[in-house]
């Protein structure tokens, strides 16, 4: 069970614990007419200087380099965090996003000075609509959950415009991402959760019972969070539309389907894309991302303003959309993220994106095949297929004193990022595994071998992991029990 992986382990001080009075990390341009603060502000509004760190540029750089060495990203190795699609982030995308013209382009500039970036946004809208089989697209939402919220606001307005005022419920499966119910509540809906069928797909009977004249939307992701394609999607679509509800596609799992099937063709009315997942933009340790929303023709007028439109050879921002839901974020979306996704689509083309999904599904299926005799996959369909991810259970390890969390900590010790743990909630001791298309066969084998090896660990080995990471097992209970949320509170300790 040994591994030669050792993550950097520094006792790196906090920025405020470093430096000496008088040190600075940058220089300012000169300005001759600096006024006294008493001339600039009334007495009761003046503050003392903020107690920020005093460090030089080399100290600043070394600090963050050390922190980065105590961190693991997709550039470090496999990152099979299920439902997060942690694929490789192409370097050219970062380079073009930091183009000096784009970086210094103000969102309130006149349209004729920003034609290039508007062209990029227009092309991205069009490409996403094509990939999703939809008719119109907004790039404004900043993340997947923001996309869900936007889609649900569109649904609410759609029903309202039709005078259908009783629809105040959103139905979600029990396997849904936590954002689905949370976004529904923020958009003013009640949440109705339905159980999954024994094979993990949508239980049509349960759906039928839940649907009513109060249903505004049924939200699902396909493939589901179990990685299973909803074969009944036609039946689901028919039931929802007959009940007068709209069908929402949570795009978190789109990496399984590009060029194979399109949500629009399956009968979905609204969908969001996670550009930081499917379209290769970096996850940034939690963000930024982007969550564009695409809709069918009948909902196009409800998209947030502005939408980028093409008038002859000119691109412009169209605000004249009387049925629009308004705005969900300032300005036009996370442009620096959008341009990366645009670049990915341009470089891959339709054929390349199709290959992305094929290899994402192949890679996940390959790991599953290698480990499923040891780590059972409890929800399975008759054809035994899963798509870009699958959910195995570590519950058999309980008798050895192990858990999904322990398996994860032992993976950490081998320099492998663990899968998502304890989600979806319907699988006991869940390990949700999504390797993405970026991993080599060799890395998939290394990961599978590690999982198989860990399955024979002893209780002592489980509980003592991890040993090779920057810190040993972190006391998360203490973090919640005794809140220390900034360095002043830490100093008082």
């Amino acid at each position, binding site marked *: 069970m040994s591994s030669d992986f050792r993550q950097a382990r520094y006792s790196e001080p906090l920025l405020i614990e470093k430096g000496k009075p008088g040190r600075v990390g940058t220089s300012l341009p000169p*300005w001759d007419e600096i006024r006294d603060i008493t*001339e600039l502000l009334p007495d009761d509004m003046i503050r003392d200087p903020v107690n920020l760190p005093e460090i030089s540029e080399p100290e600043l750089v070394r600090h963050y380099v050390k922190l980065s060495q105590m961190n693991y*990203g997709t550039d470090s190795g496999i990152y099979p965090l299920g439902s997060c699609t942690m694929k490789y982030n192409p370097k050219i995308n970062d380079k073009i996003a930091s183009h000096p013209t784009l970086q210094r*382009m*103000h969102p309130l500039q006149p349209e004729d000075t920003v034609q290039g970036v508007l062209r990029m946004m227009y092309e991205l809208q069009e490409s996403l609509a094509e990939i999703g089989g939809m008719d119109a697209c907004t790039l404004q939402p900043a993340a997947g959950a923001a996309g869900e919220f936007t889609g649900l606001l569109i649904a609410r307005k759609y029903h309202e415009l039709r005078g259908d005022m009783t629809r105040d419920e959103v139905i979600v499966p029990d396997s849904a991402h936590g954002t689905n119910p949370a976004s529904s509540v923020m958009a003013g809906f009640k949440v109705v959760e339905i159980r999954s069928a024994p094979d993990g797909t949508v239980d049509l009977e349960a759906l039928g019972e839940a649907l009513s004249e109060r249903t505004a939307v049924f939200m699902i992701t396909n493939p589901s969070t179990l990685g299973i394609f909803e074969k009944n999607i036609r039946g689901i679509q028919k039931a929802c539309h007959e009940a007068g509800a709209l069908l929402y596609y949570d795009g978190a799992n789109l990496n399984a389907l590009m060029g194979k099937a399109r949500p629009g063709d399956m009968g979905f009315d609204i969908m969001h894309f996670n550009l930081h997942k499917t379209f290769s933009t970096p996850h940034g340790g*939690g963000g930024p991302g982007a969550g564009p929303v695409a809709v069918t023709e009948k909902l196009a007028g409800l998209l947030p303003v502005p939408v980028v439109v093409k008038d002859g050879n000119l691109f412009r921002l169209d605000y004249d959309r009387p049925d629009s839901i308004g705005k969900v974020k300032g300005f036009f979306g996370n442009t620096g993220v959008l341009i990366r996704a645009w670049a990915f689509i341009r470089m891959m083309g339709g054929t*390349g994106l199709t290959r992305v999904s094929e290899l994402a599904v192949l890679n996940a299926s390959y790991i599953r095949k290698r480990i499923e005799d040891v780590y059972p996959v409890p929800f399975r369909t008759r054809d035994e297929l899963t798509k870009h991810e699958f959910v195995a259970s570590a519950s058999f390890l309980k008798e050895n004193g192990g858990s999904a969390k322990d398996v994860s900590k032992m993976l950490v010790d081998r320099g492998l990022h663990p899968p998502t743990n304890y989600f979806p909630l319907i699988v006991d001791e869940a390990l949700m595994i999504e390797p993405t298309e970026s991993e080599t066969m060799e890395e998939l084998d290394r990961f599978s071998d590690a999982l198989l090896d860990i399955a024979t660990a002893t209780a002592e080995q489980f509980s003592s992991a991890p040993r090779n990471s920057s810190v040993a097992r972190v006391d998360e209970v203490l973090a919640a029990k*005794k809140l220390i949320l*900034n360095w002043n509170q830490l100093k008082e300790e």
Partner: protein
Amino acid sequence: MHYLPNDPVAEEMLGKMGLSSMEDLFTDIPEDMRVKRLDLPPGISEVELVRTVDKMMKESRGAGDMPMFLGCGFYDHFIPSAVEYVMSRSELYTSYTPYQPEMSQGILQALFEYQSMMSDILKMDVVNTSMYDYHTAIGEAILMAKRMNHRNVFLLPEIMAREKFQVVENYIRGAGIETRTVPFKDGTMDLDALKGMLTGEVSGVYIENPNILGLFDKGAMEIRSIMESRQVLVVGVNPMTLSIAKPPGDYGADIVVGDVQPLGVPISYGGPTAGIFAVSMKNVRKMPGRIIGATKDAEGRRAFAMTLSTREQHIRRERATSNICTNEALTSIMASAYLASLGKGGFRELGLQLASRGRYLAGRIDELEGFRAPAFAGHFFNEFPVSVDVSVSGLLKECRNRGVLAGYDLSRETDLLEGTFTVATTEMHTNADYEKLLEVLVKSREVLL
């Protein structure tokens, strides 16, 4: 296909799995639902992409191509190379939410440092790791106020960016909250009018300091004293101004919102930035968003981890404080690297310089015939309102034709500010830029007279 290492070994892998073709993995998708091909332009090489982007950028111009005095919350500040370099460390930017704290101490410590520095700047106990932006942070603050006092009426300033009203409306309608607007007087909120509006059903008040005109609120120091203790004071800030101006924690703010953009984040045609969200310790459990806490590891060493996750959507689902998951963590770290780079002395010095430049430029514009700057009396930082005796939209268009983006026409935001535009300046401007602006303002006005 250079991002796809298994492209040439796919057959071998399928063979190992006992499958004969890739199609065998997709037989679960009904035939009538399959798409034949995606109608997208064919893929291109990296060289061609670079060429396309160069062309695209030539069709656009930024602040580096023409003097620009636009602000309204987005300011073109200088970004030190060390800060840009730090942001290029891919162990940080290619990671995700630190669900496995043991192998994510780097991002966790960097976020804890952001929380700490922002806490000191705002004088608030707790700062989350980010909301999407300023606009959405206001919406989340109003929702949180309702969680604090269960009241349904919220007061907003009458003069505020149109987009902020629109975003707020979408955020709060689902919760059944109604907004009312407080009139402004002489450029900032009318405190007498506010007093009359603070009835028992009012959940809280939002003020911007500085506001859309760039002016510090004249009543900010008093406002807490005229509110009931249960009513929530939400203050929106430009964090750069807090280099010299009193922090909202010192005048009774319950929730502080804003945007980190002025702190070393490129304006990048509107995003990504990061929304600031801060509260006091007693309300931390009602707060939206991700929070990092200090704790210990099994060997007793200092360590960091996400905490209070039970407020969040992945645990609490429909009872979560917000739906936010992916946020703007990396941008928050960029802001803290920038603050650390400026440091205690540099932050103060830059603040004094920006406010001094604002005063200087306003003074110079005010000397021009037909212009008044600031158009309303009051204190300001690096942005101020200007009025002119000709059409503002015509004037700005003429300036633009002469190669200067001279300011922003506030009548596009509200009819109440017809005839006013804002001018913003930063340390990026040279004396030549100022002279060019003044010359162009004079010439453009003359054309319109």
